[in-house]
């Protein structure tokens, strides 16, 4: 009986490589996750509601950048078919176009200032600011009328301050490109220079509108430096998922008013481009400034 | 700051002394200023101001002292209790009358116009009365014969809110005590 030596034991078994299987498993998980969250389940079946665009008044456009050409014309030379038909339809070699001015800087585009376009839209700031100070010489004027004027002026100042803030905010927000330019919301033939605000500014305005706080609730001396921060999480449908007042001001009245404002803001009137988590700082700087 | 204060105080004191001694000086600049301004501001109102005659001495006033025929009242400038040259002249006359009627006890009433803080005006009226009293005493009248009382803006001589009415109301009156 001849004996044939067998090769060494180690190489005999060729067990499958566990690492590869781990990778496979991981891939499977990622795929499953993607399938579940990516909206293949049920979501796509929901029929999209018909969208009507009615341009009656200036309502904040949720995402005025929609339809806007890519902010980087240098990397992707794009023809601008939407813009001024009179201009040559495509001139990709021109690096800087003084006419069509598709600006690489978003702020210029989005700041709600009146564009020179001959559109029927009214100017964004129709504030007829009466700079008239309370006239000290007219003795006949009644105190009440004066109060009224002052009240109105205060409101005016507040509104102005608010508008300014909004503009600044949307500017900064867009500069940071928080709302990507390719979100499919906005005007159907948007050019990116409509009067409007970004989603963030829109949410800000909404919460602010719901925030009711009388300065008479507070110690007047505290108005300048009172502040609280709250974290709000909105789902894409505009629903307030969760909120927390992270750093309360310590003033009961102030914090209560915030809670009321947030409770009232539990459902945005429109959806958002995506889920949004916000850290909102509440303070009274504008009031304090108006007082001064 | 301190030096300034002292300077101011000493100036005012000097001025007072001057007034009491009787040098005829022009009224101080600030005074002029006040006067001018007030007059200007109230030009428009003068027309509608009530007639001077209308505002007779209030009947319901405290019925205690009687006016003395020989004692004339003196007038002051706004927010001032210094004696003008005119006032000093009248006081001189009054002193003569008092010397002549030796038994007469008088009370000097200090009054102010309706403008200003009531509490402050009470004090101002008091100071006006006291200024008049001190001047009379300096003219040799026995201090015991003279008492003072301030009515502030409570007993205006004439009612009305005109510069004329106010000028009439900023006064010190001399009344006999029974």
């Amino acid at each position, binding site marked *: 009986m001849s004996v044939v030596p067998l090769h060494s034991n180690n190489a005999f078994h060729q067990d499958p490589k*566990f*690492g590869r299987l*781990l990778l496979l498993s991981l891939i499977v998980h990622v795929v499953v996750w993607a399938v579940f969250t990516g909206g293949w389940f049920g979501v796509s079946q929901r029929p999209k509601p018909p969208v009507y665009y009615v341009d009656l008044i200036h309502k904040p456009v949720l995402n005025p950048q929609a339809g806007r050409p890519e902010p980087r014309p240098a990397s992707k030379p794009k023809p601008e078919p939407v813009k001024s038909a009179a201009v040559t339809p495509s001139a990709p070699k021109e690096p800087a176009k003084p006419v069509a001015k598709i600006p690489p800087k978003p702020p210029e585009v989005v700041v709600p200032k009146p564009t020179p376009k001959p559109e029927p839209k009214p100017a964004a700031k129709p504030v007829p600011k009466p700079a008239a100070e309370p006239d*000290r010489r007219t*003795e*006949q004027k*009644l*105190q*009440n009328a*004066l*109060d009224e004027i*002052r009240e109105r002026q205060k409101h005016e100042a507040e509104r102005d301050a*608010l508008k300014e*803030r909004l503009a600044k905010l949307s500017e900064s927000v867009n500069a940071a490109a928080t709302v990507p330019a390719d979100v499919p919301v906005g005007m159907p033939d948007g050019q990116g220079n409509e009067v409007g605000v970004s989603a963030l500014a829109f*949410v*800000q305005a909404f919460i*602010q509108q719901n*925030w*009711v*706080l*009388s300065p*008479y*609730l507070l110690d007047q*001396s505290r108005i300048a430096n009172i502040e609280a921060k709250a974290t709000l999480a909105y789902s894409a449908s505009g629903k307030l998922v969760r909120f927390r007042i992270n750093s309360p001001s310590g003033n009961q*009245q102030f914090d209560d008013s915030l*809670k*009321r*404002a947030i*409770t009232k803001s539990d459902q945005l009137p429109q959806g958002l481009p995506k889920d*949004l*988590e*916000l*850290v*909102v*700082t*509440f*303070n*009274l*700087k*504008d*009031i304090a400034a108006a007082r001064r | 700051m301190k030096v300034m204060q002292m300077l101011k105080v000493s100036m005012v004191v000097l001025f007072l002394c001057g007034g009491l001694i009787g040098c005829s000086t022009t009224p101080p600049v600030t005074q002029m200023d006040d006067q001018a301004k007030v007059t200007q*501001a109230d030009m428009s109102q003068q027309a509608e101001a009530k007639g001077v005659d209308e505002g007779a001495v209030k009947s319901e006033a405290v019925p*205690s002292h009687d006016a003395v025929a020989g004692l004339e009242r003196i007038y002051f400038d706004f*927010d001032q209790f210094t004696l003008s040259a005119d006032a000093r002249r009248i006081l001189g006359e009054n002193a003569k009358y008092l010397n002549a009627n030796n038994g007469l006890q008088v009370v000097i009433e200090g009054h102010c116009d309706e*403008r200003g*803080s*009531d*509490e*402050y005006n*009470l*004090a101002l009226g*008091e*100071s006006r009365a*006291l200024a008049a009293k001190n001047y009379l005493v300096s003219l040799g009248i026995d201090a015991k014969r003279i008492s*003072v*009382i*301030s*009515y502030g803006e*409570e*007993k205006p001589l004439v009612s009305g809110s005109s510069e004329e009415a106010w000028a009439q109301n900023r006064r010190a009156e001399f009344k006999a005590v029974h």
Partner: protein
Amino acid sequence: MFVRWIVLLVACCALPWSVRAATEIEISAPGEQSIPLALTQFLPDQGPQSARVAAEINEVLNADLDLSGLFRFVDPAAFLDDAGRISLLSNQVNFPQWRMLGAETLIKGSYSLTGEQLVVEARLFDIVNRRLLTGRRYVGEVKDVRRMAHAFADLVLKALTGEEGPFSSRIAYISNQTGHPELWLMDVDGKRPIRLTDHRSIVLNPDFSPRGKEILFTSYRANNPDLYRKEIYSGKEARLSYRPGLNVAGRMAPNEREIALTLSKDGNPEIYLVDISGRVLKRITDNWGIDSDPSWSPDGSRMAFVSNRQGNPHIFIADIFTGKAERLTTQGKYNATPAWNPKGDRIAFTRQEGGRFDIYTIKTDGTDERRLTFGPGNSEHPRWSPDSRFIVYSSDKSGNRAIYVMRADGTGARRLTTLESDSRHPAWSTRW
């Protein structure tokens, strides 16, 4: 191998964390600066209906809460059916209905009338959070209905601001309705005036004792401006200081043991401290000029007063213990009638500017001066409400001098007394 998985897993978990980075926004003014309030008519619960009771409650609450400046009233015409129901429990109130109207707070109430006996139930609800903020049941007689409403207005302010309102307090003032300037007392809305003195002389300068039980005033009843004190409830009256010359502008110290008083017994109006029987304790000021019109700081350690020691009348602050005085006002040529607010941070005073007096406030360190009134006419003699929210003053802008009240920032001025007679020298009591 294992290290690789770890790295992979860490990368996986880092992904959602990085997505989380929250955006920040700042809201630096509320969208609305007055709280929308729905004030419903009080409804009869048991017993007969009385339109007068309901109307009176409504009127008082409306006036008081409007004065506070906190609220914007939701138009009652817009009220829905919940306003007509006596539903005073938070689970009975139809909150969505009210929220639809834009209201954030709601006042509901009922009353029961049996003869002269009146029971009023009043409730304040938070509409957003759907809860009861405060409520009270008042039992009394029909004539007390205004007091009940004032008390509830105080409570509303307490529930919303943490500090009680001043509406249950009273205002003393001088009025010549009877032909002589006499001391009167009225509610903070100008209603229910009562005459306290019958001196038929000249009564001036009232001031409440810190606990509100007594009033100090000056009267010429004895042919000299003497200081009197009067117990409000018993009507007892005593002549406190009757030195020759002025005994005016008496102000009781917060400890109720000392009275600051302007005396001219030494030939010049100066401020003294006297005890409650009138004995002089200390002389606070000593100079050639006029010193008058003291106003205590709430802690009783300092005193604001008027002095013309530097030429024109200005407000000074003196330390009671050292007697050292420092000038507070620097602007203008005529500043007078200082009133230190109960909170202790501001002093109201009058200033003559362009021949007219207006009310100003200034911080006690001389900064942050603010003009509150802008004519026409003269606004004088400011006094603070016990919560420092309001200022009462006299003004002749509509003819005769009358008492007005406004918020501490100069807004919301309203007249309290009629124009038929001359009313002035208001003084606001503490809460009682």
